[in-house]
């Protein structure tokens, strides 16, 4: 288990760096992170299952200006680990998927708060950098940037260990205690989560022409899926 957490921490630091500080090549997206955590904790498909739903849930919140969106990377770490651990012991039902996704919300908000804190500390680093440059030390810029990147990476490692640890505990201790009735209650909420993801996509792509396109495609695919399966 130590090796798994070590591997998760390495992946987590890369994902959190990609989120803000470096690259931005989408390695931090929930689908990538949850699948990776699923692979680390023993079930890549369970991780991808929750990651695919989580991928769309927070799309409507854009990282524009000073606004920080909820930490969907952290939520994916929790959900991927919990899904993989519970899938390998009791199987992953629709109820378990929903429960894992809903329980990941505190991680998204905690990660957002941690991100805000890192950016505040970076403000101090930036002002120290400016003071050193004033004195003629150009290397201070490189040191300041390195300090900022290190802070983002360290915060990423701590959050990863926290979220995957919580995910493993929830997957092992909490989910197996859910009875069939509880699972079916949660399972009934799963379509709402998927519609929430679709609404997120629709919300951030909304222009005059996308509304009819979105609803028409939804109706056509609904009819095709329904008729195909009903006839079959």
């Amino acid at each position, binding site marked *: 288990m130590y090796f798994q957490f070590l591997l998760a921490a390495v992946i987590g630091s890369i994902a959190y760096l990609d989120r803000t500080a*470096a690259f*931005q*090549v*989408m390695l931090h*997206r929930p*689908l*990538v992170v949850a*699948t990776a955590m699923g692979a680390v904790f023993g079930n890549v498909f369970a991780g*991808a299952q929750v990651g*695919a739903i989580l*991928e*769309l*849930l927070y*799309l409507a*919140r*854009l990282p*524009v*200006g*000073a606004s920080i969106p*909820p930490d969907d990377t952290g939520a994916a770490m929790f959900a991927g680990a919990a899904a993989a651990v519970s899938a390998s012991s009791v199987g992953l039902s629709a109820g378990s998927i929903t429960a894992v996704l*809903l329980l990941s919300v505190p991680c998204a908000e905690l990660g957002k708060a941690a991100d805000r804190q890192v*950016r*505040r500390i*970076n403000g101090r*680093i*930036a002002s120290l950098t400016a003071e050193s*440059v004033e004195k003629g030390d*150009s290397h201070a*810029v490189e040191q*300041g*940037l390195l*300090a*900022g*990147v290190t802070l*983002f990476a360290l915060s990423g490692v701590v959050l990863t260990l926290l979220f995957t640890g919580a995910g493993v505990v929830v997957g092992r201790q909490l989910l197996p205690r859910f009875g069939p009735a509880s699972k079916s*209650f*949660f399972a009934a909420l799963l*379509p709402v989560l*998927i*519609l*929430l993801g*679709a*609404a*997120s*996509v*629709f*919300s951030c*792509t909304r222009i005059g022409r*996308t509304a009819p*396109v*979105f609803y028409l495609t*939804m*109706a*056509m*695919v*609904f*009819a095709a*899926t*329904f008729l195909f*399966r009903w006839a079959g």
Partner: protein
Amino acid sequence: MEGTDKAVRRSAWRRQFLLQGCWNYEGMQNVGFAYSILPALRHIYREKPEELTKALKRHLEYFNTQPAMGGVILGAALKLEERAAAGEVDSRDIGTFKVGLMGSLGAIGDAYFWGALRPMASVAGAVLALVHPFLGIAALLLVYNLSHLPIRWKGFSAGIEGEEKAVEFLKGSGFAAKTEDRKIVAAILGGAYAGAVCGKTALMFGSGQAAPAFLLLAVLTVHLLTVLFRKAVSPSEILLFLLIIGTLLVWH
């Protein structure tokens, strides 16, 4: 005028990927921008340390734009620094140029990358992950980066040719049309995703007669959620509400 050599320019291009490395509320991407342009400044002012300090102070002022669009401004600022060192332009024009461009580039970049390309890549990834997880991940990364990385490279290259080329690049790239196209593709994929899942769920709940009612309910739910997003309700708040409902039902 003495220009920067290729190695220095390449170093500046690589460094732009750390534009947000020290993101802070006061100067936002200021340290990242100064870090990115530093190799060029060291080259341009290698025998004038006071000028280097002045130039660095210029670039440590407030700066914020969409990170993928930062390359255009970085390239153009680098070119302006070369011209300022040669006495062709006033060094104060560099700050004015950056401030003038960062807002509009930020708006174009936010609309294209966050509002169109990322949703399109995400929904493509989510749909294909149903076939195989690695197919989904590959789709997400390829759809996004096949557009993202060339824009970073072309933007920086255009910027380094001068402000006029940078403006030409922005006009010639057709961001407005590309944004609209990608938004439509994302809407089609999002609608297909919602329709497929609802169709599957409707089957579990009953007969064909109930299907239109189920579809109407799904459409109304999406519409309601979209209205909530427009009223600045966070997805976390909606999910938390669902978690409370789920917990209460289980408790009951």
